[in-house]
């Protein structure tokens, strides 16, 4: 009976009000009638260990215990943990088995205390009208939203039957796991390197699709640093003489970092903001540089130009701190001693091959002896210029290679490209030279362009070459903390389980990128090998909305035979599923959070309430699916997983253990004292700052039919304007407005779209436009406008905002299809990546605007 009543999507036999009121008695009543009794017993019997229930009790036993009378409020600890970087430590107020309120809880260092509109309105997500309460199956067309309630048994049996048939015919690689960033926790969440989802993937042996976001900064800066972290803890900002906020709008995107910046400013730190938009962050600046969008790389190259021309970065610095004295051959590779007749020697055993590594030292020119010798053996001065030939081999120094590019960006040229004055560029260079220590905060403003990694290399070099790293007050990078988790979590043991026969899990199959999916589905091949993908499992993600090119994403979704989406609420992506699984809300389960946050703590999530309806923690869903597939031996209990993950001497040394977390609810990931990143040794071959690389890493590959890569621009410094948004691009003649995509104060990506409370602050999609542009187009506040380009369109209201420069508009990329008057914001950005960097270019977008 009840199934019939939910046939049309969200219509439920319980009204929202009656459901919540009845929640306490729901389980008992349905168990008595047998309606979901089978699900309840399935939960116990499907657990591979058979004791999931008791395990959960054990994990939760240190919670806000004690029986409370009716109307009394209990407080549980937990974490707000979408991918905003906040990772807020919360008090969860529970009364009569309902979450009634959330508030900020004290961190050991209360400077880190935090909460925002989102953390405060979880009640709107937990009890919202779009909450998924039962498994459902599609009964209408893909995307129609017509679903019918089914039991967990039917959902799991359907998944197992479908997947088993694909596995038998094509192998487990026919199933593609797709991960977003919707829950930064270990058990049910999406934490890279730590999340139990990876154990599920490895146990199944399925394929994996990377969503490729936020990748260009690390890709480009890694060329300079070899990938070492250079950010200092936020409590160190007081030690900076200057802070440069570059491509970062913390008042919206990382609001809990902002008070550290303002407090430092009040104590005398100069607060510089480099951003095309006069936003709330720029409004707090001592000096705002209104750089033209997407031209930060040209600005950085010109700053480097000034630094070198004025001798503020001198030859000694290049020689001692960088790889400037390496010699590049005509084929683009470094001159090595083997080129000079010195045979390579055998070094340490390479653990990946079990064979000795070949050691073929880099060659440099020893000025005092007038000879090429092995790098690292020179006691005198090495040459950084004027070495044209060694033993008949034509060479160029890395210094000369870098300077030939930096010289292309004199301040006058860059000023014109960047919309700044030459004085601005000189002053920024002087600040880095004279007003250190400088902390440079870099976020994703410059990342979301096709040229993002070309930009990041010179931007990082500005701070690196001026010595503004590796000491109190001097740092570069993002303020998110995740390196200890990345380095010290025992992922190998947690993610590669053995079965009872001692056989290891098969491990992940193919690694795809979103840009590959359509061609793999169409051709049945990937990287020139057969690969048939039949099914996708979507975890902690709403990719139909958050990936570039909406038509492309819905297109490949609809090419799949069988799509499973697990989520807390009925997202736009859920509507493209065949089976929807109701994930438990964060507070309805035990978990360990935050593996990516602007504070240095792990947080214990207590189970504050029972899952609503038949919602289930994702960790249990994974175990149940594996069990149905006969792979349950690879799964484990929550406690086993967490104990394995934290089984490392580092975590014991800082007191980050499951036992301590259960007791204290929070544990610091560093020893006490401001964490200062070390810049003593870079991750490059020389251990120094790199201005040139001989090996090009490719972030992804396309099929052989794609255009070949131009490797000449990937070895050394190089920069180009954004592909669509660049002011010099022909594309802008047809589409004159650069469209900047924004974060919102009240959504984390699309999360909180279903929370009515936050619509009091951001009610609907809005495009912001400069008043002069608006006047030219006849647009007034609140007018409905259509943004379009050769890919798609979207219709929404316009707001006049003098903080936008001419010919740049901005709008949030965090709304779903039904929120727009027409079209879709995600239809406007291109899905294509840079030739080597797999990175969604959300800001490299141009459109025309029409008033409707």
């Amino acid at each position, binding site marked *: 009976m009840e199934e019939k009543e939910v046939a049309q999507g969200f219509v439920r036999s319980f009204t*929202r*009000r009656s459901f*919540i*009121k009845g929640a306490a008695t729901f389980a008992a009543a349905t168990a008595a009638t047998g309606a979901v009794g089978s699900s309840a017993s399935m939960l116990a019997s499907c657990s591979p260990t058979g004791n999931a229930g008791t395990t959960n009790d054990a994990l939760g036993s240190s919670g806000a215990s004690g029986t409370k009378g009716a*109307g009394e*409020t209990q407080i549980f600890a937990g974490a707000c943990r979408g991918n905003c970087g906040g990772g807020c430590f919360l008090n969860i107020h529970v*009364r009569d088995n*309902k979450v*009634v*309120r*959330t*508030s900020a809880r004290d961190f050991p260092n209360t400077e880190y*205390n935090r*909460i*925002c*509109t989102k953390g*405060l*309105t979880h*009640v*709107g997500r937990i*009890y*919202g009208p779009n909450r998924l309460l039962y498994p459902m199956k599609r009964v209408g067309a893909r995307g129609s939203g017509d679903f019918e309630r089914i039991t967990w048994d039917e959902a799991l049996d359907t998944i197992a039957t479908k997947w088993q048939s694909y596995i038998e015919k094509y192998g487990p690689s026919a199933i593609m796991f797709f991960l977003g960033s919707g829950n930064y926790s270990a058990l049910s969440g999406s934490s890279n390197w730590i999340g139990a989802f990876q154990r599920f993937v490895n146990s199944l042996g399925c394929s994996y699709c990377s969503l490729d976001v936020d990748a260009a900064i690390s890709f480009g800066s890694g060329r300079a640093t070899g990938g070492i972290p250079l950010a200092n803890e936020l409590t160190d900002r007081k030690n900076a003489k200057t802070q440069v906020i570059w491509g970062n709008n913390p*008042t919206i995107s990382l*609001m*809990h970092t*902002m*008070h550290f910046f*303002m*407090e430092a400013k009040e104590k005398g730190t100069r607060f510089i903001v480099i951003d095309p938009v*006069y*936003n*709330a*962050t*720029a*409004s*707090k600046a001592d000096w*705002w540089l*209104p750089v033209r969008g997407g031209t930060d790389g040209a600005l950085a190259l010109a700053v480097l130009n000034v630094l070198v021309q004025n001798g503020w970065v001198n030859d000694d610095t290049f020689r001692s701190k960088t790889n400037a004295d390496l010699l590049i051959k005509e084929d683009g590779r470094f001159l090595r001693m083997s080129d000079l007749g010195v045979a390579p020697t055998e070094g340490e055993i390479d653990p990946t091959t079990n064979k000795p590594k070949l050691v073929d030292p880099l060659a440099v020119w020893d000025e005092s002896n007038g000879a090429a010798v092995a790098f690292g053996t020179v006691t005198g001065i090495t040459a950084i210029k004027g070495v044209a030939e060694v033993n008949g081999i034509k060479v160029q120094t890395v210094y000369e290679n870098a300077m030939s590019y930096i010289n292309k960006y004199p301040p006058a040229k860059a000023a014109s490209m960047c919309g700044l004055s030459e004085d601005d560029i000189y002053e920024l260079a002087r600040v880095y030279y004279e007003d250190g220590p400088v902390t440079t905060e870099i976020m994703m403003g410059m990342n979301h362009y096709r040229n993002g990694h070309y930009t990041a290399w010179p931007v990082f070099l500005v701070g690196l070459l001026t010595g503004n790293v590796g000491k109190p007050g001097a740092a570069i990078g993002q303020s998110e903390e995740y390196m200890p988790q990345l380095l010290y979590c025992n992922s190998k043991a947690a993610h590669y389980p053995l079965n009872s026969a001692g056989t290891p899990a098969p491990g992940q199959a193919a690694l795809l990128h979103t840009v590959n999916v359509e061609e793999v589905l169409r051709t049945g091949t990937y990287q020139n090998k057969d690969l048939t993908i039949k099914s996708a499992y979507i975890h902690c993600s709403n990719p139909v909305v958050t990936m570039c090119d909406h038509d492309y994403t819905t297109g490949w979704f609809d090419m799949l035979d069988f799509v499973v989406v697990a989520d807390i609420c009925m997202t736009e992506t859920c509507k493209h599923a065949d089976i929807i699984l109701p994930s438990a809300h964060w507070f309805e389960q035990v978990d360990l959070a935050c593996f990516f946050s602007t504070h240095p703590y792990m947080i214990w999530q207590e189970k504050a309430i029972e899952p609503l309806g038949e919602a289930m923690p994702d960790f249990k869903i994974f175990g149940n699916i594996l069990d149905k597939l006969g792979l349950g031996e690879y799964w484990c209990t929550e406690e086993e997983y967490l104990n394995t993950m934290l089984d490392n001497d580092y975590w014991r040394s800082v007191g980050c253990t499951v036992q301590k977390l259960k007791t204290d609810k929070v544990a610091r990931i560093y020893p006490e004292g401001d964490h200062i990143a070390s810049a003593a040794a870079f991750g490059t071959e020389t251990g120094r700052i790199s201005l040139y690389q001989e090996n090009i890493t490719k972030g992804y590959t396309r099929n052989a039919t794609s255009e070949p890569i131009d490797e000449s621009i990937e070895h050394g410094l190089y920069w180009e304007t954004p592909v669509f948004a660049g002011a010099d691009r022909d594309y802008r003649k047809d589409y004159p407005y650069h469209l900047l995509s924004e974060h919102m*104060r*009240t959504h984390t990506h699309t999360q909180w779209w279903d929370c*009515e*409370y*936050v619509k*009091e*602050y*951001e*009610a609907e999609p*809005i495009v*912001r436009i*400069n*008043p002069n542009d608006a006047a030219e187009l006849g647009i007034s506040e*609140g007018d409905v406008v259509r943004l379009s380009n050769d890919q798609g369109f979207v219709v929404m*209201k316009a*707001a*006049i*905002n*003098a*903080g*936008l*420069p001419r010919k740049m508009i901005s709008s949030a990329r965090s709304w779903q299809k039904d929120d727009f008057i027409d079209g879709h914001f995600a239809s406007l950005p291109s899905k294509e990546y840079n030739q080597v960097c797999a990175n969604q270019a959300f800001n490299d977008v141009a459109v025309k605007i029409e008033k409707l």
Partner: protein
Amino acid sequence: MTQYGMAIDLKRCFGCQTCAAACKVANNLPKSLNYNVVYTKGDSDFAHKGTAVATGAIVNDSAGGNYPDCTLHFFPVQCQHCGSPSCVVVCPTGASAKDEDGIVSVDYDACIGCGTCIKACPYEVRTLLSEQQTYYIDEALGEVDAPPHKVMTVEKCTFCKNLIARDETPACMQLCPGRARYWGDLDDPASAPNVAKQGREVMYFLESEGTNPSVIYLR
């Protein structure tokens, strides 16, 4: 004597709306009711509140001026718990009162919803609940002793006196991401608002109205 009050540092406030959301949930406010609104200002004339989505604007956070010479401020406004409250003087039933701790309160049983106080208050922070209220979530959320939201009564910021009675601070004060808000007894020279205002330019909203507000804005 005690005069509860707060200081709000406008140089620190960056318009995140956290204080507004904290108030909304802790007090279980109906959809159409807000005690605390964070306005956006594209000018520097603080005699006017500015605009807010909560009061009908389509968007927050719009700068004024002429790029790149722009202006953007944020202005959180709630009941000012005035030393000389104009609302109390005009209340015909005594429902609006100045309590011993300085809080301007409303006795919901005595209030007849006549709206006289709304006209008398220069800050436009009082709301008449003229009809049955609707909620985002149809459950009693927030604090168990949140205001009742009775039809034909007037409501406004209570300074969360239910929380103060439990030695907590008002919901909006519990965590300001910008650390812009200070709470305490204005009659105590060592209280947080009095310490925070040292050396700062102090502004009282619509000071010329003679209401002697207990919310101190720091500029």
